[in-house]
């Protein structure tokens, strides 16, 4: 009798120990995934900041040539400030409209051979389109990591522990609908 009780006791202890171990491991991997998501987000931020820094140079270079396209330049300057302040949603919106404005500027620049020939402009164009694709890549990396975190939070059985410890899934960094439509060039 005593023997059976002690066996049961040990089994209970083992099960509890395993459970605790599982909770610890799950907690740690949730923390790791969350930190990865945050790190990925800061990568986007770095690129948005880079773009923020490049835009005034572009505006100054282009201003002298593009007399008729003041509107798009003003728009660009206005949206720029939102790149570094505001919520993720605002940043994402600002980033999207800046992408569109830049596309417009580079498309229009083809009408200005002198501008096209300027070394400074060429450099800025390469840097800005490089930053543009880095933003896209950083977004992709962010979304990959968000997926990893969300899977862990939603999948069975880690979802119990995630809920218990108050982990919340993140939102994907979506592209705006307008970006999927062809760009309209209007002045």
């Amino acid at each position, binding site marked *: 009798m005593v023997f059976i009780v002690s066996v049961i006791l040990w089994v209970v202890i083992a099960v509890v120990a395993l459970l605790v171990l599982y909770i610890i491991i799950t907690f740690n991997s949730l923390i790791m995934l969350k930190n990865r998501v945050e790190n*990925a987000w800061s*990568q986007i931020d770095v*690129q948005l900041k880079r773009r923020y820094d490049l835009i005034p140079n572009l505006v100054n270079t282009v201003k002298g040539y593009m007399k008729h396209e003041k509107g798009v330049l003003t728009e660009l300057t206005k949206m720029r400030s939102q790149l570094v302040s505001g919520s993720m949603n605002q940043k994402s919106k600002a980033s999207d409209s800046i992408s569109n404005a830049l596309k417009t500027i580079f498309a229009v620049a083809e009408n200005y051979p002198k501008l096209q020939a300027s070394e400074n402009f060429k*450099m800025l164009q*390469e*840097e800005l*389109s*490089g*930053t543009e*694709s*880095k933003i*896209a*890549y*950083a977004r*992709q*990396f962010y979304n990959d990591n968000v997926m*990893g975190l969300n899977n862990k939070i939603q999948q069975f059985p880690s979802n119990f522990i995630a809920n218990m410890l108050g982990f919340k899934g993140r939102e994907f960094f979506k592209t705006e609908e307008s970006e999927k439509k062809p760009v309209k060039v209007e002045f």
Partner: protein
Amino acid sequence: MATLYDSISWNKRKSILLVVLFFIIISLLGYAFGLYLGSVFVGVAFAIIISTIMTLVSYYSGDSIILKMSHAVEADRKKYPHLVNTVEGLAIASGIMTPKIYVIEDSAINAMATGRDPKHASVTVTTGAIERLKRDELEGVLAHELAHIRNYDIRMMMLVVILVGIIALLSDMFLRSLFYGRGKKGSKGGAAGAVIILIGLVLAILAPIIAQLIKLAVSRQREYLADADGALICRHPNGLANALRKIKNDKEPLVEAANKATAHLFIENPLRTFGGKINFLFHTHPPIDERIKRLEGF
């Protein structure tokens, strides 16, 4: 994601296995040498000390040796802004540190990745690749290289180049000393003859093992995997597919500098025939057509 981490740890284990196997081979060589010298201990100790030093030196500076031998120069951001930006972007997408970027002056289209881990890695492209590939094609090629870096394929590849080189070097030293020895002391003919037969045997055993090692390192699966991972990194499998098609139709697919240079790493034939090609992406690889077919199927 699980498969990615599995393949990384498999690659790390394979690297250790490779080093162990290599030390067994070296000890065998040393043993044969020792028989000839009259002291097995001296032979084995000599081989192990030399190869340990060489392995350590090459493990920590092998990438820069390979780069130097290929006449690769570090890419200047001002001269190749697009290349640098693309690599930086892909590094963000694959979640690794931006590797060092090198350029080889050569009109052939080619690229390679080397280093011992993602923190000490570099990608190299030929000027031919920069000039003749379109943006998305270059991006595909670079994504493939970054996949090799992220998967630790580069460590395996570098170790193979180094270890095979050391074996070739040691057996060469060994053979040479035999011939010198015979020149000095003609009377020892009988013993030397037996030793030469023994060495012949050892080398005969060695050659297929070396070939196997190379197969291990640059197995076709690793290449297909890097193709797939690369496509996942840049989300555009057609870029690499088109680049591969361009390389296939290229009239001068060899990188001259690399062939001449890496041949120095290996002293005797037949090793020289592997030498120039082993680091270079598009030679010791699965059939290009099959790779293109798979990429277009994604």
